[in-house]
């Protein structure tokens, strides 16, 4: 809302009138599809891992078939309990979480959750994590038995228990190793989800690309903390937690922008996206698709709205969505006329 009104106020006096692909007035239906690693998404809007359950929970609230794709909650080899409460805390325009990757495990996912997802008319991506490279590989081997999985997304923001707790996502060598090992066994395309808690994201983007990743997604949450000043203790039982939501959007956008320019494989943008305007920032910065996370919590229909408003924007600009990608030097430079 903020930005579309700003748009109007900025229309230049005497600037050229909009010139689209077709003459004005004619009906224009923009092409919203996008292909990533051979997978065709009906639109570039996915829901992010850990924020949309296994899809089923939202079936009552929206039409799941509208989605470009669903990335399910992180799946590990064994079921996991997660951390003791409190697990979440609201901060300014964001939230901290330390869920501790509670999940049903790969086998139960195939039995209990996948059948529902498979029947949807949307792409299902399974987020995978582990505490050792073998964990990842064995989880993928189990998931390979399931039908209807479009791709795997590797969550590498976990500590590698064998490397003394060093995080996969903050050591380029580990990133490369786990990508290569996972790619070798994966029956479907492999997306590597990068952690933002690094000095230079391009190093990690390239490590994943060189390891054979078919695509990247970023960002996962930023590590943060909050303290209760009445007890002196951290607000989360785990001490630190991952920050997500609108607060991180500018940080995520910059990292996505950098990653896009560091690799040749496609990039999915994630971080604080709750509106079509937010999504457009990432697409213009060069992301092929985007994922919606925390916004699903406070606005369960956020993803549907983003899809609808993206389409309206493309209609207004009279461009197919793909023409907007990577036009961050300005639409004029990209040969798109101003409206």
């Amino acid at each position, binding site marked *: *809302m903020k930005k579309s009104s700003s748009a109007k106020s900025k229309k230049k006096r005497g600037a050229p009138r909009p010139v689209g692909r077709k003459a004005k007035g004619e009906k224009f239906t923009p092409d919203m599809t996008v292909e990533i690693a051979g997978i065709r998404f009906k639109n570039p809007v996915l829901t992010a891992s*850990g*924020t*949309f*359950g296994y899809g089923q*929970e*939202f079936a*009552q*609230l929206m039409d799941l078939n509208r989605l470009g794709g669903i990335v399910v*909650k992180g799946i590990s080899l064994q*079921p*996991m*309990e*997660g951390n*003791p*409460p*409190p*697990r*979440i*805390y*609201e901060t*300014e*325009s*964001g*939230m901290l*979480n330390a*869920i501790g990757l*509670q999940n*049903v*495990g790969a086998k139960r996912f195939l039995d209990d959750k996948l059948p529902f997802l498979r029947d949807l008319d949307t792409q299902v991506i399974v987020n995978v994590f582990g505490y050792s490279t073998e964990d990842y590989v064995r989880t993928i081997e189990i998931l390979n038995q399931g039908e209807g999985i479009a791709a795997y997304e590797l969550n590498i923001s976990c500590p590698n228990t064998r490397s003394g707790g060093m995080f996969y996502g903050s050591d380029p060598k580990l990133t490369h190793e786990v990508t290569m090992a996972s790619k070798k066994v994966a029956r479907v395309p492999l997306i590597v989800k990068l952690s933002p808690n690094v000095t230079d994201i391009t190093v990690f983007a390239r490590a994943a690309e060189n390891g054979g990743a078919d695509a990247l997604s970023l960002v996962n949450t930023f590590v943060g903390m909050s303290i*209760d000043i009445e*007890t002196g*203790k951290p607000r989360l*039982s785990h001490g630190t937690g991952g920050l997500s*939501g*609108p607060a991180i959007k500018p940080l995520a956008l910059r990292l996505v922008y950098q990653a896009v320019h560091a690799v040749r494989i496609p990039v999915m943008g994630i971080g604080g996206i709750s509106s079509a305007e937010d999504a457009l920032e990432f697409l213009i910065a060069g992301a092929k698709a985007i994922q919606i996370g*925390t916004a*699903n*919590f*406070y*606005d*369960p*229909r956020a993803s549907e709205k983003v899809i609808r408003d993206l389409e309206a924007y493309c209609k207004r600009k009279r461009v197919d969505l793909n023409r907007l990608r990577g036009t961050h030097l300005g639409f004029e430079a990209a040969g798109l006329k101003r409206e």
Partner: protein
Amino acid sequence: MFNKMAEVRENIPLSGGHYLLSLYSPAQARVTRPGQFAMLRLPNRSDILLRRPMSIYDVKPASRKSKSPALIQVLYKVVGRGTGAMAELKGGDALEVLAPLGHGYFREDYQRKLPQVDEVVHVAGGIGIAALLLAARELHKRGIRQRLFFGGRSRADLVCYKDFGGLVQKTILATEDGSRGHKGFVTVPLENHLAGSERGKILLMVCGPWPMLEACVGLARNYGHPCLVSMENRMGCGVGVCLGCSIGVKGEGHGAYERVCTEGPVFWADHVRWAGGTPEI
């Protein structure tokens, strides 16, 4: 469960920073069961990012003429930014309501206990009262004897208990400062009552702050009564996807945490792991 933009009809200030909010939302009001809750969102306030969970205190017809429930009432206390902003709502304002959520007091296995008891004893601590009215009404309809124990810090905390008047046989009040009812914790008169009871013949329904819950659960155990607790925890989504509201429950492996929003908010007291829980949210 639906997400609706509801219109504020009234937002009446009560004593002690409490408010009674009436929201027009017929579709949600009609399907609400006792003990369920709503997630409320103030539109256009990104500084109050997550929705706030609130028990559905009551459902009512929108007018005298009508019989079918159309209003959802929320009884809340101002404790922070979100409830502070709610206090400023006026008739005609819009509020996003996701409701009804959770299992209430009448989940299948909870109901099965009812024929076995002589009395339901409600215990409310402060704003915990908000979770109990619909249950009391339903139990009244079913002809079950009820008693309400209601404690607060001072009498300003003892809001709305008169709404229980026609439903429960007896209401016992307590305040820490003695400004109304028994002076001290509500658990003292509660224990007196339980002490005279036959084991297993009372069903407790408790809602209040963690220390009070723990105390009541201890009493129920000591006197051998089944006890249902309505739990609170910070919530991210209210619909079971964020896993943020999980509390420790008994059971091994994966069963060790359950979601307040989905498996709760009402739990069997002896299913909850009280130690290692979340006394401070």
